[in-house]
């Protein structure tokens, strides 16, 4: 025989289950819409490709910073926190280049940073020991995002952009 109380409890069980699922699903949906990822807000902040110089200038003023920078995290012979402003294109390496490295593992012309529109692109120049972006070997041109770690041999830089 089926107890009426047992039937009631079964429906109570199902009701609690579904209310709980509704709550979690609703929060998950909110989560998706809001997009807590910083990447999302960064994309929204980058000007559209057809934006004029004014756009970029106006963006720079509000935030305080201007040019994207390569900040020294740990580089032989350099103070931590020192930074290179990335105004034009520049090359990193052990030879006579814009960003000179005293690193036995660096090649003469090791890697290159070029500006393409509003992004800075990192490219390895066929170096012997490779260039690492966030501890992954760089293959081909890679766009840099704020907070990215660029490593060449023992030298580590953090890329910053306002």
């Amino acid at each position, binding site marked *: 025989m*089926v*107890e009426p*109380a*047992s*039937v009631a*409890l*079964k*429906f*109570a*069980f*199902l009701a*609690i*289950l*579904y*209310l*709980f*699922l509704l*709550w*979690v*699903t609703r*929060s*998950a949906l909110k*989560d*998706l819409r809001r997009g*807590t*990822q*910083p990447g999302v807000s960064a994309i929204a902040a980058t000007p559209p490709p057809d934006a004029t110089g004014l756009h970029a200038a106006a963006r720079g003023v509000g935030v305080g910073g201007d040019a994207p920078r390569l900040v020294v995290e740990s580089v032989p012979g350099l103070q931590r926190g020192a930074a290179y402003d990335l105004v034009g294109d520049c090359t990193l390496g052990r030879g006579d280049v814009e960003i000179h490295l005293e690193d036995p593992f660096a090649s003469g012309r090791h890697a290159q940073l070029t500006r393409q529109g509003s992004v800075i692109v990192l490219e390895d120049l066929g170096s012997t020991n490779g260039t690492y972006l*966030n*501890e*992954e*070997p760089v*293959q*081909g041109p890679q766009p840099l995002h704020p907070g990215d770690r660029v490593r060449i041999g023992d030298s580590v830089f953090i890329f910053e952009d306002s």
Partner: protein
Amino acid sequence: MSARNRELLALIPASLLVTVGFAAVFIQEDDLISDTSLTYGGVFLGLCFVAHLIIRFTLPDADPYLFPLVALLACFGLVMIFRIDEDLARDQAQWFVIGLIVFAATILLLRKDYRVLERYRYTIALVGIVLLLLPRVPGIGAQVNGAYLGIELGPISFQPAELSKICIIIFLASYLRDTRQVLVQGARRFAGITLPPLRHLMPLLVVWGAAMVLLVFIRDLGSSLMFFGAFLAIIYIATDRLSFVLIGLGMFGLGAWFFANTVSHVANRIDAWQHPFDDQLYDAVGGSYQIAQSLFAQADGGVAGAGFGQALIETPTGAPILPAAQTDLIYALITNELGLFGAAGVLVVYLLVTERGMRIAMLAQDSFSTLLAAGLAAVFALQVFVIVGGVTKLIPLTGVTLPFISYGGSSIVANFLLVALLLLISDRARREAQGR
């Protein structure tokens, strides 16, 4: 509301479910209302609260919904197993506690940086493969229904494939993090399809191939499907090349066809799947009895279910009607007693766990974390697919456990380990996402 307070709040419905479920089973079986069910609910809430405190103090930014969802699944398992057999439920509750201890230990050990796992990738891969080999070792291996699934060490029996899946996923994630770009850029087009470079594919194929061969060797079909699917999912996420997945599926088709024609154990399963109501197959040893009974049980449930304690598991004389109700066929039992509503609810819980896992993978900043989270979520989802698909006759029935619900210690412990890893990844990802 902060993430951790949300988590705490979400644990309350899970504990309520334990109370209500146990109360319903008590009333049905003993015709009396006792406050024991409240005690069970309270103890369950207490255990979850301890785990919650550990998360609160070590992983303050971790995903708030993952743990309550898992607690909900565990509560489902406890109620259903208690309804089958009190002693089994006591065992299961003990395993639940051990699972929570493993969960806490994993979080505490790896709270600084779980990425140390990458350093031991080959060791971990080796452990995974040795674990798979164990059931065939004479003395400790045990054969059940033609498959060598478990090992028995004194009183403890253990299914190593459950732990092995996590080891293999960790290896794949860390190996593919390094080589995924090479795999894509070194790819050559041959006869219209893109082939990855063999030199970088080799270690991958060796480890994964060994796992597959061993699974066939121990005749664990469900797990091999799970491993294969997870492998394809993780390689697709790492390389973004659909052609690799297509090649993999082709290989799977060939392999499946080969084994269906050569290994009798596999052929039997497929026959039973295609004709579950055939008289001869129904009566045969290892025949379609299980799947036919599973389908009857689910049909009996209807929309709202027969109610707790109403499903026929065995005849009054003790002959089983629904075989392996606490392990393989527990999903059929849930459908029988809670109906379409209850079963769909369980599936939604699994869907949400997978969704949280994929969300964690999307949030993660470095590719090891992304691949690991996605791989773990994929293997979890596939495990549910393999067993629920089998029980509902979508695919041939093979014995893997329904995570957190099925009776079985190794399954609970391994899946708690999996969830602990997901929470670790999620904590780091969300903290970095908030820029702290």
